[in-house]
């Protein structure tokens, strides 16, 4: 990807009056012409789909499990405000300090204050999408605190100065040659190699030293149990456990939707998350964090803080249909199965959350005025809907967002609603409505098209895009209406 495209979002004027910040088509153009990138994604997504399928051999069992997963999250969301209070009370009893942040700016400030209060200089981080949402590393860096990613994939993209391209496998867009080069450039004494074991060993060497010297650890949270105040964290590399147990101070950041009611809700979700995500029956590590080190215990941090981030989620929550977005358990299955994502990769979305979940989440959090093109970057094929372990109706929400973008709801459910409206499109649909709501007009119109449609030049706007890789559709000499009548089929 070009250096220009690696920078933060840039404003693009489409020339039709509306301005968006995401530029899906432009970035897709670059990605589609990047052969190694396409090959990396295609291979990786094919592998992930096959692994997931192997984990769920019985369609009936899977359907039941998904229904259960959806119900658990729905139940928790229905009582979200009181559960959040319960979580805060339990955590406080257990010795975890809870902080509330409405914006990412506030959350960053809270984390910085904690760190400055403890004289923290270096931090190790476990993988956390919420911290990506906060752009926490950059913020801490500006304040003289170095945060090092300890998840291998996150570490690689941190070296490359890139954003994650996948929510579970952040550096899935890179192959071992690219990683070998990065390591040779950035890790002292490391020669270029494509040997995966040697590369992993190199990263481990760097990490061990970092863990030993870190003043604090940062992590995300996969599930927080309101009943017990337990933070559940799944991972495969052990780095999450080290980040949350070795340093004397641990700060966990989580979106407010990550709650479940009881500990009994965890096993079904654990039966869904790793299998949907990476096709593993269970992750190598499942961490359950309930309190700081107690007297007499040999490990664990002296202090734990939990930062609860809203960042637009309350607004999403307010609308019952859009609320379903918040059921997401961030497994990434929707992107693994998305035919669009598999071809353009995660960076094309120019957002922290790519793929189908990103297409519904980003416009709701950043606003439709910023990400108007994302809900349209879908063929509505429903592949994501079919696999989502908590049954989020992603395609319906995409359509709802398209609607908010042209005709905002009275409640202004989504920021930037209406920003996608154009006179030309609205007029086209008015014309379409007239033609299709009046059978006589329709029959006259289609009759004319049958007779004269071949005269429409293929360079006319929507046809131009179509005919770039396809021939122009050929109008039949007679419509089905005419044929049905001629063949004597009854009209009523």
């Amino acid at each position, binding site marked *: 990807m070009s250096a220009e495209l690696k920078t933060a979002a840039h404003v693009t004027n489409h020339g039709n009056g509306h301005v968006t910040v995401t530029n899906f088509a432009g970035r897709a153009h670059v990605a*589609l012409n990047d052969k190694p990138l396409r090959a990396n994604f295609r291979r990786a997504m094919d592998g992930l789909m096959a692994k997931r399928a192997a984990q769920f051999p019985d369609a009936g069992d899977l359907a039941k499990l998904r229904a259960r997963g959806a119900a658990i999250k729905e139940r928790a969301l229905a009582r979200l405000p009181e559960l959040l209070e319960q979580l805060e009370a339990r955590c406080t009893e257990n010795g975890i300090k809870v902080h509330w942040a409405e914006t990412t700016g506030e959350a960053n400030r809270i984390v910085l204050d904690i760190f400055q209060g403890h004289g923290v200089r270096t931090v190790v981080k476990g993988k956390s999408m919420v911290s990506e949402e906060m752009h926490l590393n950059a913020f801490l860096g500006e304040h003289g605190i170095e945060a090092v990613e300890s998840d291998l994939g996150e570490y690689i993209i941190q070296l490359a100065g890139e954003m994650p391209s996948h929510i579970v496998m952040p550096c899935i867009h890179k192959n071992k040659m690219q990683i070998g080069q990065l390591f040779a450039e950035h890790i002292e004494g490391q020669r270029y190699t494509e040997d995966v074991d040697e590369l992993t060993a190199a990263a481990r060497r760097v990490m061990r030293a970092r863990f030993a010297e870190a003043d604090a650890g940062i992590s995300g949270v996969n599930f927080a149990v309101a009943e017990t105040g337990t933070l559940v964290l799944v991972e495969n590399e052990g780095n999450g456990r080290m980040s949350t147990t070795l340093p004397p101070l641990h700060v966990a950041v989580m979106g407010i939707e990550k709650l479940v009611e009881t500990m009994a809700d965890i096993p079904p979700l654990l039966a869904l998350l790793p299998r949907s995500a990476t096709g593993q029956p269970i992750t190598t590590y499942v961490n359950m964090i309930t309190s700081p080190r107690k007297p007499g215990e040999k490990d664990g941090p002296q202090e734990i803080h939990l930062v609860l981030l809203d960042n637009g989620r309350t607004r999403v929550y307010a609308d019952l249909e859009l609320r379903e977005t918040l059921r997401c358990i961030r497994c990434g299955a929707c992107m693994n199965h998305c035919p669009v994502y598999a071809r353009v990769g995660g960076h094309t979305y120019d957002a922290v959350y790519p793929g189908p979940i990103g297409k519904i989440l980003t416009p709701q959090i950043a606003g439709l005025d910023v990400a108007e093109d994302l809900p349209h970057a879908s*063929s*509505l094929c*429903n*592949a994501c809907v079919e696999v989502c372990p908590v049954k989020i109706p992603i395609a319906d929400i995409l359509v709802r967002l398209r609607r908010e973008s042209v005709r905002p709801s009275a409640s202004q459910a989504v920021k930037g609603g209406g920003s996608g409206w154009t006179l030309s499109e609205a007029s086209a649909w008015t014309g379409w409505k007239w033609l299709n709501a009046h059978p006589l007009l329709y029959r006259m119109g289609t009759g004319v098209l049958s007779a004269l449609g071949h005269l429409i030049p293929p360079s006319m706007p929507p046809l131009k895009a179509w005919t770039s890789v396809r021939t122009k559709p050929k109008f039949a000499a007679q419509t*089905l209406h005419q044929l049905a009548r001629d063949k004597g089929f009854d009209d009523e």
Partner: protein
Amino acid sequence: MSTAASVPAERPSTVYFFGTCLVDLFYPEAGLAGMELLKREGLRVVFPQGQTCCGQPARNCGFFEEARTVVRAQFAAFPEPWPIIVPSGSCAGMMRVHYPQLFAGEPDQAQAEAFASRVYELSWFLVHVLDLKLEDKGEPVTVTWHASCHSMREMGITDEPKRLLRSLSNVTLVENPRERECCGFGGTFSVRQPEVSAAMVADKIASVEATGASEMVTGDCGCMMNISGAMEKAGTPMRSRHLAEFLLERGDVR
């Protein structure tokens, strides 16, 4: 999401045929073949001249009011309680799955729900309601099946069309390992994100061609327009037809 249809208690004697606007304009022979197949099974097939479009294009673009106006015209055109047979999984999905959503809270919500429950995708109806049996009259041929996303994931059609193809003795069906992957049509998606759509259809063509079949059979003309149009543009045209046309040509009722 998928609202699987249920077999009516009694075999109907009259059915409506909803041709779809795409078939109407570009592939009327596919629609006619569907109607002939039903007629050969002894059904009275009614094709209301007042029918137009299922409303999906506007609904998918967020223009719900315009879509509802057009859908109401379909309510008016199909007044009797007969099953409505649709030769497209995508339009059938719009009518069966999305009409009830689109009319939730509208005064005619009940009408939308009743209408939706009468909608059947053609191949499903042929297999489950009519138990169609065919005798193959054609020359040996190797075909592959293209499944549309909405037929699979909204209408719950999985094996029905392939069952019909396999029942023909001279037809060899070679399945496409990427059958479940979208061809990149997606209505306005193909013109809003033309390059992504182009990449998708290019991959689809490659997987269809790799089956070695001499013909592609499908149940959705939107996909067909996309795939066969792209094959033609690439200079590698392959015969492609709607399932109804294929069955009608080859099969005699047994």
